[in-house]
């Protein structure tokens, strides 16, 4: 089998298993799978900026939060559903991302300083939302929760199975988009910028514009995760959704799985989310009370990855499967 055929076969098996999952899994397992897909999706979105274009964002919670609040506010205050609201969410996040990117790239802020800037914007947006009384302030913004026997897809009101399929569609769409981007002119230019920005400029690449494009696409994708978050959990607190721990959790999947690869964010999210959940269950079953056990677990995993597979766990697996250097 050729390399492309093997990747196609892998994708077909994965897609069939994911589509059939609700037939076999109970509601609890389905909620874990939904969370896996959620982090596969946000990881994929973050990867466009860092993995492809080399721009480290440690503040992606900003886009989750803005997207979530935009769609939730439209729904609770004006009765506008998520499929219309998501456009405002995307527009708002693209505007925020482009504004941050413009400031940073225009004034030559790069590397860790750029990362600090992304944290700063997420943090003061968090503090800002604490003071917007209209959206609940620190007390939170709530969507009405009712028992749903049937899935109301138009308003994203329904049971676990509906949310699972919505997240599966989002994650699949993100995967397809990233695969296409990586093979396009943008993918080549982003990787050139990531490897050596000065050389990229000398080859005629307007690096300022292409970096802004990466931020805009990443922010737009992440905003949809926020819309999903709002309608799935039905409650939003600035302290939670804009918090830096949210940003960190988004980037753990792709780092563990393989930064800049297409399968890395998926594999990383699947591993971290399921193992962390199993660990939580184990701790609960043993009757122990260990606060922060998940964070400690993430720390240990990260340590092991950095020590033994610094490029993430996907590249060696890809090599073993004969799929070539991390695609």
């Amino acid at each position, binding site marked *: 089998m050729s390399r492309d055929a093997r990747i196609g076969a892998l994708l077909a098996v994965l897609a069939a298993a994911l589509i059939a999952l609700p037939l076999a899994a109970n509601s609890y397992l389905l909620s874990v799978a939904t969370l896996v897909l959620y982090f596969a999706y946000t990881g994929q979105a973050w990867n466009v900026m860092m993995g492809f274009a080399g721009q480290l964002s440690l503040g992606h919670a900003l886009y989750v939060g803005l997207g979530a609040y935009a769609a939730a506010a439209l729904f609770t205050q004006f009765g506008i559903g998520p499929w219309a609201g998501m456009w405002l969410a995307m527009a708002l996040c693209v505007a925020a991302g482009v504004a941050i990117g413009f400031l940073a790239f225009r004034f030559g802020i790069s590397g860790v300083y750029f990362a600090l800037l992304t944290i700063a914007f997420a943090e003061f947006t968090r503090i800002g939302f604490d003071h917007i009384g209209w959206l609940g302030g620190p007390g939170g913004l709530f969507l009405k929760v009712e028992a749903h026997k049937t899935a109301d897809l138009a308003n994203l009101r329904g049971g676990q199975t509906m949310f699972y399929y919505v997240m599966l569609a989002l994650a699949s769409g993100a995967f397809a988009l990233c695969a296409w981007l990586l093979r396009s*002119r943008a993918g080549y*230019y982003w990787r*050139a910028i*990531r490897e*050596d920005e000065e050389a990229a400029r*000398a*080859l005629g690449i307007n690096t300022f514009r292409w970096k802004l494009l990466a931020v805009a696409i990443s922010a737009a994708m992440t905003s949809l995760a926020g819309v999903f978050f709002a309608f799935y959990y039905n409650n939003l607190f600035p302290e939670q959704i804009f918090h830096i721990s949210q940003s960190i959790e988004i980037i753990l999947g792709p780092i563990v799985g393989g930064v800049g690869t297409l399968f890395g964010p998926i594999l990383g999210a699947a591993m971290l989310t399921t193992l962390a959940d199993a660990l939580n269950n184990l701790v609960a079953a043993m009757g122990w009370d260990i606060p922060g056990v998940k964070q400690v677990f993430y720390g240990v995993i990260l340590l092991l990855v950095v020590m033994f597979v610094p490029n993430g766990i996907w590249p060696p697996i890809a090599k073993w499967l004969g799929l070539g250097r991390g695609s």
Partner: protein
Amino acid sequence: MALLEVRALSKSFRGLRAVSGASFDVPEGGLVALIGPNGAGKTTIFNMAAGVYSPDEGQIAFGGRRIDGLRPHQICAAGIGRTFQIVKPFAGLSVLDNVIVGALQREPGVPGARARALGILDRLGLAAKQDLPASSLTLPDRKRLEVARALATGPRLLLLDEVMAGLRPTECDQMVAVFRELNRGGLTILLIEHVMRAVMALAQQVVVLHHGEIIARGAPAEVVRDPAVLECYLGEDTEV
């Protein structure tokens, strides 16, 4: 009218005058070498032509159009390709992908750019290594890749910044043959070079820079006999 016209160019860094009133031409189809001792201002002139710095005074015209002060990507789009003295391969990308990035400047679609890149790799003898990561190349191959990438952008003028440095004499001769052939194909070349073996073999005209000023110009054989040039290279009391 020459393809590249440098007129009364000056540039200072914190009071140090790196280039002072330099003027020279690179004729269309020519092969001109810019030489001079370390710190003479060669790379500064080069970087002004490539858009890295803006000149303090003077102008640079390319094909009759002023290019001083343009940004590097605009200079590339105007038709000037450059290499870096310290090679800058996209280390994580394959040799082919490195050249495709350059080729996308002329071919907006990836398939077209790939075809163009393959042709250039073939001309530079890198075709067999197209799938290797650029990080695995030896220094001579990295220098060749640097040239291939610049050529892929379809330049009318190629700026070469010490591409011979660090090469063995036989490798240097191979590079000389490559540039001679490119020049014969109509490509105009301006090179900065320390390796006199390459300069003598390649250049039709040599411009000598010392303390930011041009002290001599002419055919290679004349320039190396010029007393002013000997003085700056060997010291004034030396008898030759």
